[in-house]
């Protein structure tokens, strides 16, 4: 039963194909109080997606947070935002924040492709004032929403990340570096699944023995997922 649970975790992990390392220079906003806003907007595709913020670090000061939609966790720990594109199209994590000079985190997202008439699900990052509406920065975002960073989940392995330049104030910029997926490739996952299945069957034959042998691959898979 425990191994079946591992297989379920593995199947979830198989959807995480994109990671983006984000670093933000907020020197131009240092000392400013506002809101840090992470949005995930569904594009109406047949399957939803989840975007995870992990490894968050900053020399700024986090405040209280509020959420919309399906959001789990809180910064600086892992935060997961999900949309299902059937009843939920928008999830948001908004946290009060006093800006320091830098922010860094890794964005990891599942990669369910949009349908033929839908748009890709999109993760977007905003640096807003304390009113939660006014942007602290003017960016080159063509929609004039003044997002700093967007990540479109278009079904490709890497997704499409876009960083907009900041025209005002100075001293604010971001970089986004797509990383090679740290999660197992599907072929490996298939093999691993088969191995687990075999191991499960074998363990069923050796009832009451070999418990310590089962813990090693489970831990490895968990590490792989987190990476």
């Amino acid at each position: 039963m425990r191994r079946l649970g591992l297989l379920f975790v593995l199947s979830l992990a198989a959807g995480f194909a994109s990671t983006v390392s984000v670093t933000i220079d907020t020197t131009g906003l240092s000392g400013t109080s506002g809101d840090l806003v992470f949005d995930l907007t569904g594009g109406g595709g047949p399957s939803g997606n989840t975007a995870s913020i992990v490894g968050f670090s900053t020399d700024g000061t986090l405040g209280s947070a509020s959420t919309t939609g399906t959001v789990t966790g809180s910064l600086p720990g892992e935060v997961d935002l999900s949309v299902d594109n059937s009843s939920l199209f928008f999830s948001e994590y908004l946290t009060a924040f006093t800006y320091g000079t830098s922010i860094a985190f890794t964005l990891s997202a599942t990669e369910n492709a949009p349908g033929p008439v839908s748009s890709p699900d999109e993760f977007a990052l905003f640096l807003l004032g304390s009113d939660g509406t006014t942007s602290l920065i003017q960016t080159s975002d063509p929609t004039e929403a003044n997002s700093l960073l967007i990540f479109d989940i278009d079904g490709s392995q890497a997704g499409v990340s876009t960083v907009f330049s900041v025209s005002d104030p100075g001293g604010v910029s971001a970089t986004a570096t797509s990383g090679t997926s740290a999660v197992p490739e599907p072929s490996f996952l298939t093999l691993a699944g088969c191995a687990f299945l075999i191991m499960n069957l074998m363990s069923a034959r050796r009832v009451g023995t070999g418990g310590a042998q089962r813990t090693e691959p489970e831990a490895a898979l968990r590490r792989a997922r987190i990476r």
Partner: protein
Amino acid sequence: MRKSCAQFLFAFQFFAPFVLCTTSTAQSLPVLTFTASGGIGGAEGPPVVGQGAFTCYAASTSPPAPALLVGPLPTQCNVQNKFSQSATVQSTNPALTFGTVTGSGSGFKLTVTATNSGVGGVSGGVSLYRDNIPAPAGATIKLRFPGSVTGAGQVVVTAASDTGPGGSLVSVGAFITSAGTVTLPPLLIGKSGTYSIAVSAGVIANSGPQGPASSTASVTLGCNASPLDPLPASGTGGGLTGWSYDYEISDLRGLDITNVALQGRNLAAEMSVPYFNLDTSDFTGSHCTLQPSGTVGDCATRLVDFNIDPTAVEASYVAGNVPTGTSSCLIITERFEFDPPVPGDHCEPSGNLNCARFFPTVSYTYVPQDSTEIIQEADLPLRLFFTVPDPDPKSKTSLTSLGQFTTLAHDSDQTGFPDLDLNGDPMKTEFFEPNAINQGKAGDSDNYHQTYLPSVEGPGVSLFPPGPKPGCPTCVHIHWRWSSLFALQVAGVPLFPNFLDDNGGQPRIPPGSTQSVDIAVTAFPDNVEMDCSRLATPTDPLAGKPTVFWYCGKGNQDSDTFFSHGGFYNPPSPAPAPEPGITVAKSGLRVDHATGQWGQTVTLTNTTASALTGPMALVLDSLPSSVTLGNADGFTSVAAPLGSPYVLAALDESTQLGAGQSLTITLQFNNPSNVGITYSTRVLTGGLP
């Protein structure tokens, strides 16, 4: 007897491409019997070269049209009662002669047009003969040739009366390059009180297609002209020109034109002259109105002439009692002319806007009893209630509640582009500009534009292909002056050889006129009881409201014409076609936390092997019912499914999306229910969807 055929021949023989002559028997009005004949080419005119077609049109000017008996016309124009027919000219110098046309009526008009089918040049032109016209002393005759002269042309006007030597025949020739006015010198009228005119316009086509030629003559009438009885019935005009409108001789507003549309695209709810003022050395009349049969009181008016033809409707009024006890009068003619679109017509410098011209003009002639009476000012405002419709079927509303946006602008003589919007773009509040034309000279503004879109798009420069592109394709355009840039020549070569309306950068008013024009732009309903200068309240909002444009002419000469520059408008676009060679890539959606709108970019890529030109529209079908496209340029009204919002790509007829090139369109959605924003797309080219 009236002048004979021989006398007209004498007047025309020097250049007229064809000749129309007449003999008629003088008799009392209104019945006239007449015989007319004419021809093109042969011994009666210069040769016809190349291939072409010419059309005869004949009609009586007195409704109901009397029967016109047609002579034998086996291969030439088969003139019948109010009809037109074309014949092909295939040889050089044929002798094509009209047959004899006889009939009866109070007047007769024969128009001939010659058009070039594209092979070489055709010498052709227009001819008009009108007989038995009530004759004022000192009559003037004004002619317009709407968009018909390509390059250059000659016109001769001859008038004759039955008076004795010295005043019986006058003739004027002129060289015209565009719609022009030819004025005859005073004609001494004889005992009959009538005279005849004949017009011949020879058009020498340079090359390429030549627009349809037609001519009409308006004749100012005498102070003693009798009121029309019965009054002309209301009706519908336009016909084959693509325009349509309703006309009526109103009780107080003169000739009233309503529901003006070009190929179904509405232009104006109403055009009229609500009042006039006259100030002379011995008379002051304020807010007089054009009544069809007024007789009592200062400036009492009566309708004395009414004409309608395929391109125009015209009414003339005589205002007497100016002052009471004298025979002085003010003769006012309203003429609403609507010309069909002419391919290649450069209504604006780029020549890239399909357009049709219209001329809602008002003219006056002051006829004093003696030379001691001097005109000081005649005010004749044109009230033009433009109603430029939003093609969005969801925005259907009555004409008098259409939201409109306007500009009153000045064009730079250095760049040719607008360099000043007098009251913003769009004008936020009502506005009055005195002396937009000032004593015949340029004032602060040059043009007026009105559209249903929230701002007036100015002209620009296209890079592919290089050159200017027109401003505001959706607008009604009124230009009383163009930048002098468009008259520039380099080494004798015009920079804009096909643009003929520049007038050297001077106001486009009749030659020698010292007129002034005030402009008032007001929200509807406006108070027509007010004089022009008091119509606009500067604090009253205007943008987005139904809007009335007042063009208030002020003349200080014995005669003048206002709005002779006309305006232009573009007909509805042809139905666009889907462009399968365009791929559409959507970005994700994100919310603008400040506005609550949801934004997205869409990238269009030309995957064909050739460049594509605009207009190009991205249509969004099947949006959720609670979602609207906030930055839609319109809604499909031609290409089904209808009612879908669309956004126009930044392409027009003069710009291209090259093979393999992409462009990006930004979409802004209103999504108050926060539902998923899904839609399918169509990319349509070749017209507004």
